[in-house]
């Protein structure tokens, strides 16, 4: 009888340990997933932000260059008219 009770308690104990082990692993995995998602999200944000800044700079530089050329042509034409 006493032996049966001891066996029962031991079984319950090992089951509990196994369950808490599974729970710990699950929690650790979940935390790792959340961290990875956060890092990925930040990385994506950082890459997109830098790309937007670079593209806007390139576009603005190109447009100002174009306008500078157009202004030069206009000024040359205007000066020519004045000389005449």
């Amino acid at each position, binding site marked *: 009888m006493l032996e049966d009770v001891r066996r029962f308690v031991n079984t319950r104990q090992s089951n509990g340990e196994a369950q808490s082990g599974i729970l710990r692993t699950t929690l650790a995995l979940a935390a790792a997933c*959340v*961290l990875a*998602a*956060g*890092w*990925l*999200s*930040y990385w*994506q*944000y*950082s890459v*997109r*932000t*830098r790309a*937007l*800044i670079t593209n*806007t*700079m390139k*576009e*603005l*530089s190109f*447009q*100002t*260059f174009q*306008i*500078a*050329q*157009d*202004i*030069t042509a*206009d*000024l*040359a034409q*205007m*000066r020519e008219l*004045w000389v005449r």
Partner: protein
Amino acid sequence: MGAVIAKKEIRNLSAWVNKLQAFVTDERGVVLIAHDRTLEMKSLPGSSIDQLDETHRIGYYNRSQFDRLEIAPWNDRGTALVRFERSAVPAVMASCPVPNSNFTISAVGGMGGLSAIRSDCLCKNFSLQASNGKDKELLG
């Protein structure tokens, strides 16, 4: 004669600056014409207008006082973003000298799209915490 030509030239530039959010400065860094008229006759930071004596200032520009254009880095982390005239939105700026003249054309592009990226970002708050404030390197 020269002054008349210069004035006509400047007037002609207005069509160009309105194409972009742009302004044209002279060799002393004074804004001659801008898409936003309130910027006109302001001087660029570090411009040489301060070194010109008052008589010449009045002679050239018909005024002696020049407000300073407020252009400062958006943060101190070396990004290309600037704060233009106390704007709440970061901007980038590009300048190009106009060949065969003393003019420089500069354009300012607002970076309102950054906030869209920010809000579009998955797990926004979490990522900002996880990044330990690193996003400040970009937007500070």
